[in-house]
């Protein structure tokens, strides 16, 4: 790293900015003077608000990443896509059978998939999007739920789909159907809910309420962020 220049130049929607090497795209934008109001959420790679597309010199391929996770490169040409218009059905998941007919009636466009795999290529989470749309077409709800589990709903798949499918909304419907109708209820969850309803947490909560601001600050500062190895 020693012989690499300390600064890199990247292009945001065509305009060049010089920033120190090693920053994430998000931090590089802030270094360049932007104040992020949209397209910036958890800053930790989970919320999916900062989907970014970019190209690098000499490569025709469109590359993707989350702005909060991807390190800025010299000569990177990028744009954030914080929002992409989507169709979203409203439903009561309790009332829907977990079948292909449910998915197809709420999102009939899934049958327009031509199998181009553009969604998979653009997914920053490397999810097998085309595969789960194929599973959705044939009503394999469990497979859609499992394949799409790491989806952050950044929306980049929908931005690239020639069949105009909004894949991530199909996927979350499938995960809801799976959780509601297919997966076995979790015994430990039911036991815990019952425990809480019996008042297992009341004493601790009362202590916290009574402790006051100074003690809250002390406890917050002393909290365990990552468990010690």
């Amino acid at each position, binding site marked *: 790293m020693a012989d690499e220049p300390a600064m890199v130049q990247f292009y945001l929607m065509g305009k060049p900015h010089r920033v120190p090497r090693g920053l994430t795209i998000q931090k590089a934008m802030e270094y360049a003077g932007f104040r992020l109001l949209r397209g910036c959420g958890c800053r930790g790679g989970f919320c999916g608000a900062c989907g970014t597309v970019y190209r690098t010199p000499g490569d025709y391929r469109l590359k993707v990443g989350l702005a909060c996770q991807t390190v800025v490169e010299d000569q990177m040409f990028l744009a954030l896509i914080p929002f992409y218009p989507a169709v979203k059905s409203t439903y009561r998941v309790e009332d829907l059978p977990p*079948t*292909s007919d449910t998915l197809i009636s709420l999102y009939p466009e899934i*049958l327009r*998939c*031509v*199998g*181009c*795999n553009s969604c998979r290529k653009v997914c920053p989470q490397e999810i*097998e999007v*085309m*595969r789960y*749309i*194929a599973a959705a*077409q*044939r*009503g*394999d709800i469990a497979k859609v739920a499992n394949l799409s589990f790491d989806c952050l709903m950044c929306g980049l798949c929908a931005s690239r789909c*020639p069949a105009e499918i909004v894949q991530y909304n199909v996927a979350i419907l499938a995960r809801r159907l799976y959780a509601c109708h297919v997966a076995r209820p979790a015994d430990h969850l039911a036991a815990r809910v019952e425990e809480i309803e019996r008042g297992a947490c009341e004493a601790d909560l009362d202590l916290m309420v009574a402790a006051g601001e100074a003690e809250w600050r002390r406890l917050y500062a002393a909290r365990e962020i990552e468990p010690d190895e």
Partner: protein
Amino acid sequence: MRLGGGSVRIPYFPGCTLHSKARGFDASARAAAQALDIIMEELPEWTCCGATFSMSADSVMGLVAPTRILVSAKEAGKLLTLCSFCYNTLKRTNRVIATDAERRRKVLTFIEEDYQGTVQTVHLLELLRDEIGFDALAKRVTKPLQGLKVAPYYGCLLLRPAEELRFDDPERPTILENFLKSIGCEVVDFPHKTECCGSFVTVGSPETARECSSSILEAAVKQGAEMLVVSCPLCQYNLDRAQREAPAGQAHAPAVPVLYFSQLLAIALGCDEACLHLDGLSVDPRPRLSKWLGQKAEVTALA
């Protein structure tokens, strides 16, 4: 694949409908194949084949999905399928990839694969005819369906375009007849066996499709058919639906069960009846089949 001596495995592409509406087609074929020592190995990953072969000469998008499916069977060199739509789409796509260098290059560059069109798409009927042989099949039958009068219905997509599919004679096909004879059935010949059932016209103009299907059923019943067999989920749907959905004032089409050929095959080979999925038809075939079905199925039929 070589038969004889242990079971053989062949990659299998079910297609979407066989995983949803036509489960009986899929399950009965798998069970019957297993009884014949053939393991139908479903491709680990697959998408819809597109269902219709793209006739467009200047767009390759319709070739992308079926080509990707063919590529995934590259190593085995063969891909088994059952649905007439899938068979038609995969086989015709492969012909384009094998013979049209420009479109091959375009599709394969796009999907980033290397493939020369070497996979042979095989229909289960072809496997029975060419690899096992109908005479040998007859010897494996444990419950010959003696006395059952069955009309073979081909529809369009298994046979046409004949010069591309090379499946059977498009005007006077015999493969289903020979198959039915090998499992003991009495074949009912009828003039409409290669007429169109209405196909996907059923979506936009259900009445047109109903008329097409009704005339097929009438012709078969007139010749004494007690059942029809098909190899296409859409033919099955159209023929079955014509029996229950008639416009006010019009007669329903003749009531006759429409089965997948693999369902009769599984019965004749003595497979577990759980694979048959014979429920949900306009006319319950189980009373007529009770002679060959076990006690449990007879009870269900009476219930």
